């Protein structure tokens, strides 16, 4: 039985970039892989997979009934993986447990997790563009403990609902779990120290690190390449509300967008986790006083 590597992150934190890198590294081709054909990674929140694997009609189930079946769905799915050397599944859920304590992502279905974390100041800006929402509303979303994706009770999304919680809770939930080994990767390190950061990922998933292959996969996954492919052919994961999926791919763009008051709100809400990841901006003394 092949077990799953979860590629976990809050939205707009580099998950897709990581998936594209892994696909490029695996393929080791002479040209970049097509971003619309990421065959080495998948997303188990796709409703059809759930229905096909469990032989059920999830459209008839309540959110709680679907949640209750997700651990067995993940476990059953691992029994069906036959074609690849390792399976990588994108996930935006927080590390959730059922009311009886059963983890949504069970240890016996899991080889490990790669958690990608990004400065919430940049997440807010990127997530606002992604959802065509205001920065203020997006700041509210990041402190909303009920925040979920694809939770539309009056229609059927092609994705199952996913519980995100607050940004801080999302990060904490994955870091606190002790069900399986977890590699934590900072988006900013993927950007500034790509060779060291992606080599650590390759080692974690127990593939052989090949310097030439690594360098090529990093180049083939670079932002300009992804942007160019999206401009030319589109990207099927782009929400209809967003102008593009790959927008700037920078760290620190928040400095050009957020007001002082907005920065204060975000820092105030997520201070502990931001401090842990060295994300606290240099604030004027009056702000530091009340945080």
């Amino acid at each position, binding site marked *: 039985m092949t077990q799953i590597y979860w590629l976990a992150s809050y939205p707009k934190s580099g998950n897709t970039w990581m998936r594209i890198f892994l696909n490029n590294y695996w393929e080791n081709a002479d040209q970049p892989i097509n971003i619309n054909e990421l065959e080495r990674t998948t997303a188990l929140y796709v409703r059809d997979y759930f*229905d096909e694997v469990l032989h059920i009609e999830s459209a008839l189930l*309540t959110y709680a009934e679907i949640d209750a*079946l997700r651990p067995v769905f993940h476990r059953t799915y691992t029994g069906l993986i036959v074609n690849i050397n390792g399976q990588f599944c994108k996930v935006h859920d927080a590390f959730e447990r059922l009311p009886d304590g059963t983890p949504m992502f069970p240890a016996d279905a899991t080889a490990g997790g790669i958690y990608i974390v990004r400065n919430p100041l940049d997440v807010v800006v990127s997530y606002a563009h992604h959802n065509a929402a205001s920065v203020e509303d997006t700041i509210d979303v990041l402190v909303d403990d009920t925040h979920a994706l694809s939770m539309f009770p009056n229609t059927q999304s092609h994705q199952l609902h996913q519980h995100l919680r607050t940004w801080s809770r999302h990060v904490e939930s994955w870091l606190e779990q002790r069900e399986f080994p977890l590699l934590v990767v900072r988006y900013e390190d993927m950007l500034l120290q790509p060779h060291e950061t992606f080599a650590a990922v390759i080692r974690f998933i127990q593939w052989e690190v090949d310097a030439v292959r690594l360098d090529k996969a990093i180049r083939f996954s670079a932002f300009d390449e992804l942007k160019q492919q999206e401009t030319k052919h589109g990207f099927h994961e782009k929400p209809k509300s967003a102008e593009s999926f790959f927008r700037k791919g920078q760290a620190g763009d928040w400095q050009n967008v957020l007001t002082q008051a907005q920065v204060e709100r975000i820092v105030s809400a997520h201070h502990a986790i931001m401090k842990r990841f060295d994300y606290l901006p240099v604030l004027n003394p009056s702000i530091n006083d009340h945080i």
Partner: protein
Amino acid sequence: MFSYACFGLCLHSDLPFPNAVRSESDHADIVIRAGDVPTTLAGATHQGVLYQLNETALIYYLPGLARFWVKDGREIVYAAPPTTDIDTLRAFLMVIILPLLFHQRHEMPIRGCAVEIDGGAVILTGYSGVGKSTLAAALHQRGFRVLADEFTVVRFDEAAQQPLVYPSFPVLHLWRFALHKLNYSQTAIEQLPTVRPGLQKHILSMGDTFRLEPLPVRGIYIMNAPMRDTDVLVPLTLEKSLLNVNWILSYQRLAIEMNSIKHYWQLAGHLVAQARFWYLNRLKQTFNTDELIRAVTQSVSR
């Protein structure tokens, strides 16, 4: 026992199906009744998280909700705790359990709905949520008769070897969002019963327009929502039709385990030979109803 006419058969059930067409027949082809359902199926050849089965029997579990025992393509026994309401039982019977019973009968339960156009049956199939029922409802609004929702039973006329759709229940299951898009008023929607308590999926009755006569299959439309712009209607070659014929079957992996797939493939060969297959491509971001209806009706007329 209530007696109903559906799928060209007589269904006897101790559970009422309020919208179904009543039958006077004493002979039951299918019986649905409450009873004891064992936790283990003796002689099971395959099992999954929610089921155990062999060629002639299947037990299907919905944890905390119900257990179903499907036998010989003729009988469904259900057991449920008092907390499970009748609507929930009925919904799972209509959407999951009955198609599995038709596999035991070695028949063709195709995922999706069917509508009468030009005296023939058009089957709208495709993945869950692509808009099959919504398109059927839009056709119904324009005066076309709905023959089946959720799954469609195709059976061959023995004399002419012609594939026929046998109408099922005179209802469509529609999400509240779809009903709004179809211009149903908030008040009208509030008055429609829901498929299950707590689910904003409603039961739309087809009323007096429903008929039970089987109709020859005129076309099978596989609905998609492709990423790139493409033609709304794309005819499938014989080869591509054969590649798709397996996928359009309800619960096809279970059909393989039940060993009923061999019967299906025999029938599917005839189906591909006698009915035209199409890709029906809706826009990814919105539901271009008029364009889809035009594409289907014009292609059937041709």
